[in-house]
Structures are given as structure tokens and as C-alpha cells.
């Protein structure tokens, strides 16, 4: 995104003529946006940064005389001291990490799969199919959560369907057990090795970190995949249409099967879109809030607690504004670092094999002609 920033250097150009007054107009036109973004974005972030270093209790102004600078105390309370705030923060991170780990690959793969399916020009009723897949994306997260709470209730539709094929479904939103632990329990492993239970990070043992998303969180994971796959499908469709069908058709006429065409022809060309989808997915997944607020409020057993919801509840419900703000800034840092990391992993290498082959092409063509 930053690549599109253009710095206009027009120092030598004389002002006047038809361009007269443009500077004034330019600033006047952008002023509303700048003022509102400044007041409701820049100033708030700075204020919250101050609050995260203070002992403000929520009463009066955070700048009044009886509010003290406490340094890194708030940050230490949630990361180092090992008390309840640390354990809650660790739990929230653990929950959200599993959420990201499952939702991002699933939604990317599913949306790409759907896009490839409905992108065929010869497909009848493709508009209808696209509409069906995209529709969940236009609904609000609150509405969809209400629906999900019903579908995944103890005697809800999902469990009735599971029951029809002989599976006893769990009481989804009330089940705090982790799915990895459940799977291990099914093969007889109920206690972790001492190496994992003896030590840990952020107040949780490694064994707890590896417990997997809880059954309740799994329902949220399915919901996220259900609602976002349509949006990302549209991004992939857009990219596929920009590719045009000629290359794919050529490969098809030459007998490449669908699988080969997808992996060797289509996917390499989708790299920029893939990056966009992964980044947007990653950013979105670390911000799970609406669903938790509407649905479980962190329960059962804090297994659906997320950093975003914890930040909100610490500040607005427990009146611990410093810790709430500190959590928000750590969350911000996590999102920024992961986005940069992803950008680095998926960066365009200077001379890729793909690029290199472009230059070999003319010679080989001659060979074929000969």
C-alpha cells in the first residue's frame, strides 16, 4: 500500500495561471478528513498511550493532577507478574492464536476454492452461486452470532444433523475442553509430559497452550470461515478475471488436468491477491470482538476470551484502564509485527525461477519451430 504514495515535487513550477488557488483548495478539501482523523484517531491514540502508563481509574480527566505516571507497571502486570491479569492475557493470546491458526488458512483455501469453482464462463447460474456464497458476508457479525448461538445450541440444528449420522454433538458454546486435548484423550493421553506441564509462558503451562481451541471457540472458527469466505472469494474472482481465460484454455486444450492447471498456471499468478487475503485475514482475526461480546463474553472457562475483548472488559467493566490500554497496544504490536513478517515471507524475490524462465522462452520457441 505504501508503494502508491507519490511525493509531488513541483518546486520549479510557477504558481498562478489556471493552477492559481489550488493550494488553498487542496488543503480546504482535505481539511475535514484530516481534522476528523486527527481528533478521533491521532489524539486518542496518544491519550491512550498516556493512560497505559498511568494509574487513571476512570474518574475525571486522565490529565488531572491526581493521576500518576506509573511507568511500565501496567505492561508488567499483564506480561510478567504471573497473577490473574497475566494468566488472563496469556489465555486470551492462546485462544486467539488458535483462532488465527485455523481461520486464516481455512478461509483462504475455501474462498480460493469457491472462486475457482464459480469463475467458469460456461457455468450456468454462476451469479446465483456467487450470491449464495457471498450473502453471509453482508450480514452483521451480531446477527450472524445470534444465528450461530441457535444453530450450535445443545439441541440445535447442527447437533440434530450430527445425531442423524450417529454422532453425539457437544454442547458447543458451553464446552471449554480443547479439541487437541480431546483428540489426545481419545487415544488415552490425558496428562501432558512433565516437560510441558512443568513450565510455561504468561501464567499458562505449555500443555495448556497446546490444548487447542475449545469446542466453543471451534464454533466461532466455523462461523468466521462461513462469513468471510464470500468476501475473499470476490477478491479472488476479481484477480482470476484479470488473468483472463486464454492461458487456462490453452493449457486445457493441451490436456493439462484441472489440478495441474490450478497449481502450475493459476496459483503462481494469484500471488498478490493471496498476499492481500492473508494479510486482511490475519488483521481481522486478531480483532475478534463483536462475536465474543454478543455470544459468550469470554466463557466458558475463559476459552473464548480474546485480547480485544479482554482489553474492553479490563477497561470498561473492571475499570482497570491502564491495563486495558496496555493490552490494546500489545495487540497493535502483534498485528503490525505479523503483517510485516507475512509481507517478508511472501515478498517477491529479486529473480524468481518464474521470472528467469521468461527470458529463456524465445530460444526454446525456436527449438520447437525447428
Amino acid at each position: 500500500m505504501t508503494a502508491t504514495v507519490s511525493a509531488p515535487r513541483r518546486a520549479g513550477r510557477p504558481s498562478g495561471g489556471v493552477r492559481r488557488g489550488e493550494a488553498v483548495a487542496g488543503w480546504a478539501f482535505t481539511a475535514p478528513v484530516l481534522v476528523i482523523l486527527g481528533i478521533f484517531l491521532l489524539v486518542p491514540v496518544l491519550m491512550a498511550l498516556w493512560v497505559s502508563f498511568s494509574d487513571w481509574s476512570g474518574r475525571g480527566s486522565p490529565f488531572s493532577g491526581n493521576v500518576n505516571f506509573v511507568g511500565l507497571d501496567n505492561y508488567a502486570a499483564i506480561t510478567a507478574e504471573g497473577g490473574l491479569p497475566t494468566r488472563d492475557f496469556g489465555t486470551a493470546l492462546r485462544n486467539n492464536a488458535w483462532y488465527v491458526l485455523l481461520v486464516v488458512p481455512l478461509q483462504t483455501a475455501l474462498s480460493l476454492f469457491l472462486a475457482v469453482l464459480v469463475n467458469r464462463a460456461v457455468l450456468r447460474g454462476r451469479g446465483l452461486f456467487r450470491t449464495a456464497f457471498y450473502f453471509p458476508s453482508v450480514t452483521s457479525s451480531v446477527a450472524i452470532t445470534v444465528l450461530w448461538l441457535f444453530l450450535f445450541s445443545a439441541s440445535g440444528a447442527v447437533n440434530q444433523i450430527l445425531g442423524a449420522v450417529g454422532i453425539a454433538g457437544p454442547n458447543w458454546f458451553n464446552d471449554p475442553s480443547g479439541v487437541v486435548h480431546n483428540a489426545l484423550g481419545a487415544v488415552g493421553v490425558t496428562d501432558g509430559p512433565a516437560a510441558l506441564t512443568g513450565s510455561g509462558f504468561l501464567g499458562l503451562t505449555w500443555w495448556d497452550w497446546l490444548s487447542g481451541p475449545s469446542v466453543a471457540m471451534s464454533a466461532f472458527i466455523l462461523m468466521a470461515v462461513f462469513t468471510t469466505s464470500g468476501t475473499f472469494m470476490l477478491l479472488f474472482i476479481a484477480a482470476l478475471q484479470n488473468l483472463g481465460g486464454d492461458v487456462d484454455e490453452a493449457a486445457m486444450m493441451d490436456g493439462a488436468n484441472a489440478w495441474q492447471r490450478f497449481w502450475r498456471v493459476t496459483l503462481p499468478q494469484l500471488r498478490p491477491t493471496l498476499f492481500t487475503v492473508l494479510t486482511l485475514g490475519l488483521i481481522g482475526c486478531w480483532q475478534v470482538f463483536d462475536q465474543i461480546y454478543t455470544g459468550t463474553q469470554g466463557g466458558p472457562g475463559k476459552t473464548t476470551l480474546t485480547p480485544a475483548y479482554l482489553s474492553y472488559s479490563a477497561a470498561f467493566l473492571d475499570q482497570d484502564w491502564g491495563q486495558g490500554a496496555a493490552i490494546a497496544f500489545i495487540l497493535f504490536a502483534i498485528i503490525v509485527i505479523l503483517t510485516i513478517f507475512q509481507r517478508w515471507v511472501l515478498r517477491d524475490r529479486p529473480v524468481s525461477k518464474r521470472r528467469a524462465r521468461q527470458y529463456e522462452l524465445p530460444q526454446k520457441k525456436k527449438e520447437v519451430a525447428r
Partner: protein
Amino acid sequence: MTGTSFAKAEIAAAVSRKWEKPTRQRWHTRTLTWQILLYALLVVLALIYISPFLVQISTSLKPDAEAATDAISLIPQTWTVAAYERLFLRSDFPIWFANSAIVTLFVTLGRVFFASLAGYALARLHFRGRGVVFAAVVAVMAVPTVVLLIPKFLVINQLGMYDSYAGMILPLLVDAAGVFIMKNFFESVPVSVEEQARIDGAGTFRLFWSVVLPMARPALITIVILSFQGSWNELSHFIISTQSPELTTLTKGVARLASGQLSQGTQYPLKLAAALIMTIPVAVLFFIFQRRIMNASEGAVKE
């Protein structure tokens, strides 16, 4: 997006060297089988995506007891609109709806106007600091909204706007993505269009308002859709900017309803009816502009 025809030709050539042509007949039977499998798969997937909403509609028309015992049947044994009656006649639901409508109206108008103004300036007007302004707007897009919950509350509170329409609407009036979309659009408009009007002596605002803005309809519709959907579905901002019942929006009200603070028992028909009504305005907008939303890319590449 960056796929050039050169790269395509190269891939086509590479592909043609690798695979041999099948015979015509094998080709036909194989494609037919694939077609059948493809349609079967698509129909199953579409049903999976649509059926939750069908269950929602039918459940909202069932009595409470039936909803709890028979969650899956699409045709209610006893038809009733009790849930809707209760929502509209004996609850705050109409107030929530009105609040959502008010906020959405102002936010959409504001975003369309301010985003097109700023987008035009950033695309066409030459002024010192333009690059910095644009960089700032792009940087803003990168700040996660959830991180801003506490910060926004602090400022709204300090400005004395807590628990007012001003506090609900003003912070949402501008969004960086809209500016970005408008800037991209205005950059694609030929400069010659403006030159004529400029020579005729039109001022910058007049030029913008009567010449360029009317041309921007496709981009404006996009922003209207995004703003409407965004502000109608917004929840977290209203949680932190209001507390009084008369300023509750649909999202906030329905979320409270769902978590059981306002209701006794499960009351699934009531909750699902509320969620359904909340979905209708965005669904209507979606179906009106469906073509635009679904084919946004196709229009964009044509020269």
C-alpha cells in the same frame, strides 16, 4: 493483477510442452463427468451457505417451545408472528431501528461527501504537502479499529460528547478506505474534462461539484454500499460511545438481547426475528446493487 500477456504466453508455451493432447472422445466424456460433479458440488455448497438463513426465517415464525424442540424443520407446525409482534409492539426494538437508521444516514452522507472531496484533492489538486497527507491517510488505514476502543472513548468523553448522537456519528464520518477509492477513481478520469471548464472560469469547488463529481457515480455507489453496510453493522463504537437506552442501536440492542440481559429463557424466535430484521436493510441494498458488487472487477479493467 500484475499478470502481463507476456507472462501468460510464456506459461501457455510451457504448458503446451508438458502435456499431450488427449483424443477427442476421451475429452468429451471426461468433461461431462466433471461438469456433473461440479454442479453437484456447487449445489451442496450453496445449500450449506443458504440453509442457516432458511432455518432462521422458519424459526422466527415458530412458538418458543417448538423452536427449542424442533430446531431443524423448515416449515413450522404452528405458524405465529408472536416474536415480531413482541419486538415491534412491546419492546424498544423500534427505537433501536430508528437510531441505526439515523446514524447510518448521516455517516453515509458524510463519508461520501468528505471522501470525494479529499479524494479529488489528492488525485488532482497540486499543493505542497499532498504526499504527506496521502501517506497519513494510508497509515490510518493500518490502525486496527479494535485497538481504538479505549482511545475513542477517552476523546469522546473529554469532548463532552459521550452518550450523544454527536459522539456516535462524528468519529465515523470519515474513513480512509473511502478516500483511497475516490482518489483512485479521480485519477482515472481524463484531465481534458476539467480543462475545458477551468478555461471557462469555473472555480475549483464548482469544477469538482458540477463537472467531476457527477462522473464519479460508480465510485460513489461503491462508497455508499460500504458506508451503509459498515455503519449499520457497527457495534464496538456504539458500545463505547453511549449508555442510555434511547441511544441504543440495533446491533447493540440485539447483542444485549442475545446475551440474555433483557430476556428470560432462550426465546430463540424473538432473537432470530430481531437478527433477521436487522439483516433486511443490508440484504435489500445488496440485492439492488448485486451486479455492481459481484462484478466490481469486470467494470474496473475495461478501458
